[in-house]
């Protein structure tokens, strides 16, 4: 597996990984806001969000139809759809693509569920590696507390109840998350994770995230040169508006 840079894509892909409650989504959101403000062509994609596959996944989860194999495959389908329809064209067009979870989430979760690691990796080997992968490493107890404080009711698969680790969802969640953490740590060196101390204050982490992104990616190459031309009818109405509005329209055009 090679990175997008190694494959000579004009774009770059930055991924965040970590346990639920590690604060990774907050960090990537703040990263996105910064890049947008800098005028960078940026696109954000979330795990498990393909419109095409969503209804099947939620049906499978709600009705508890999923086995480790089908759980793995349906998420791979979801990923493939986003990868082929959004990520690849955007990376060809020189975007900085931000992914909240990437293939490593599957590598960790599916293996904990009992799928053979080589099989899972083989299924995802159509995907290139991120140019940067941040791993938000938090103490298990800290992550657990963040999730358990905010959301008292845990969903079946989220808690890993399908693994029959415990009849108590909270206990099951703890064991499940602990095993996922082990998988992440084992992959950390192999995939060059940038390991972040997720127990630190969010602001402090974000300073470091931005610094590392600037160090690894020459952001000046990813700036939008000028606003995209708008369709004629829109162009007339929008002409007088401040630049902020133009940025918002650009975003739509980029999606």
């Amino acid at each position, binding site marked *: 597996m090679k990175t997008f840079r190694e494959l000579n894509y004009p774009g770059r892909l930055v991924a965040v990984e970590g346990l639920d409650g590690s604060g990774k989504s907050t960090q990537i959101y703040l990263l996105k806001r910064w890049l947008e403000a800098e005028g960078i062509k940026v696109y954000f994609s979330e795990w498990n969000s393909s419109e095409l596959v969503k209804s099947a996944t939620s049906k499978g989860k709600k009705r508890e139809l999923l*086995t480790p194999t089908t759980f793995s495959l349906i998420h791979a389908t979801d990923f493939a*759809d986003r990868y082929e329809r959004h990520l690849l064209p955007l990376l060809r067009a020189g975007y900085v693509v931000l992914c909240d979870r990437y293939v490593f989430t599957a590598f960790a979760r599916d293996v904990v569920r009992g799928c053979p690691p080589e099989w899972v990796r083989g299924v995802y080997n159509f995907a290139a590696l991120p140019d940067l992968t941040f791993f938000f490493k938090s103490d298990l107890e800290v992550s657990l507390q963040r999730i358990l404080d905010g959301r008292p009711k845990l969903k079946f698969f989220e808690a890993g109840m399908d693994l029959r680790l415990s009849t108590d969802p909270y206990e099951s969640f703890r064991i499940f998350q602990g095993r996922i953490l082990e998988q992440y740590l084992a992959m950390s060196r192999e995939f060059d994770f940038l390991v972040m101390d997720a127990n630190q204050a969010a602001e402090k982490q974000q300073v470091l995230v931005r610094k590392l992104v600037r160090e690894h990616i020459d952001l000046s190459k990813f700036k939008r040169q000028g606003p995209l031309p708008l369709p004629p009818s829109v162009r007339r109405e929008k002409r007088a508006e401040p630049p902020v509005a133009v940025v918002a329209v650009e975003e739509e055009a980029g999606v």
Partner: protein
Amino acid sequence: MKKQSAVQKTARRFYGHGIPGVNPEQLAGKLIAVEGADGSGRSTQIAQLVGWLETGGHPTVQVGLKRSTLVSEELARAQEGNILSRTTLGLFYATDFADQLENMILPALRAGFIVLADRYIYTLMARDMVRGMDEAWLKNLYGIALEPDGVFYLSVEPEELVQRNLAKSATLDYWESGMDLGLSRDLFDSFVQYQIRMQAAFRHLQKTYGFEIIDANRPVEAVTRELRKKISGLMNGG
């Protein structure tokens, strides 16, 4: 898991890692797959076989493509929209297959049923290969599949397939014509070219998976006779 008393004579196996936690030796029934394009007489032959097997006292279950509870509706909807890329399409079908494998095929075999598969992984692999997917990738993906006791590929010349499909529905199916491949804008030409490629892919897969190629250009009865003979053989022998 309970132990089945009857142990298979021929070793039952998955092509690869299989399904976590499933011991293939506990699957006592028989798995028979019939492959072939639309118009190859596949459905007719399967209906014949079900009747024949059930009359003979064998409990029988049928599975086929796009019949899973999990994703069949979503897959059909996605295909209508014509927005599926090849990896997504391939994985969607693999999910559909895995769901039926775990929820239909394996339980039925465990209970000693005969499972008739109206197409199995070979059609899925051939389709993906024709669309340029990597063969090693496909082999790994379908390493979840159980090796059937018998696989019969009903081979019909593309020119004959066109005639049969048109006689049946007066048009050619978008996907069975491989229109997503952009081989030709002409539906007829595309169908013929696509089916030629599918046959080549099947012949290639046959070398690895060693299934039987049945000449289905012949009348229905002749094909039925041959299938019965071969299936009788594997029921008694294995």
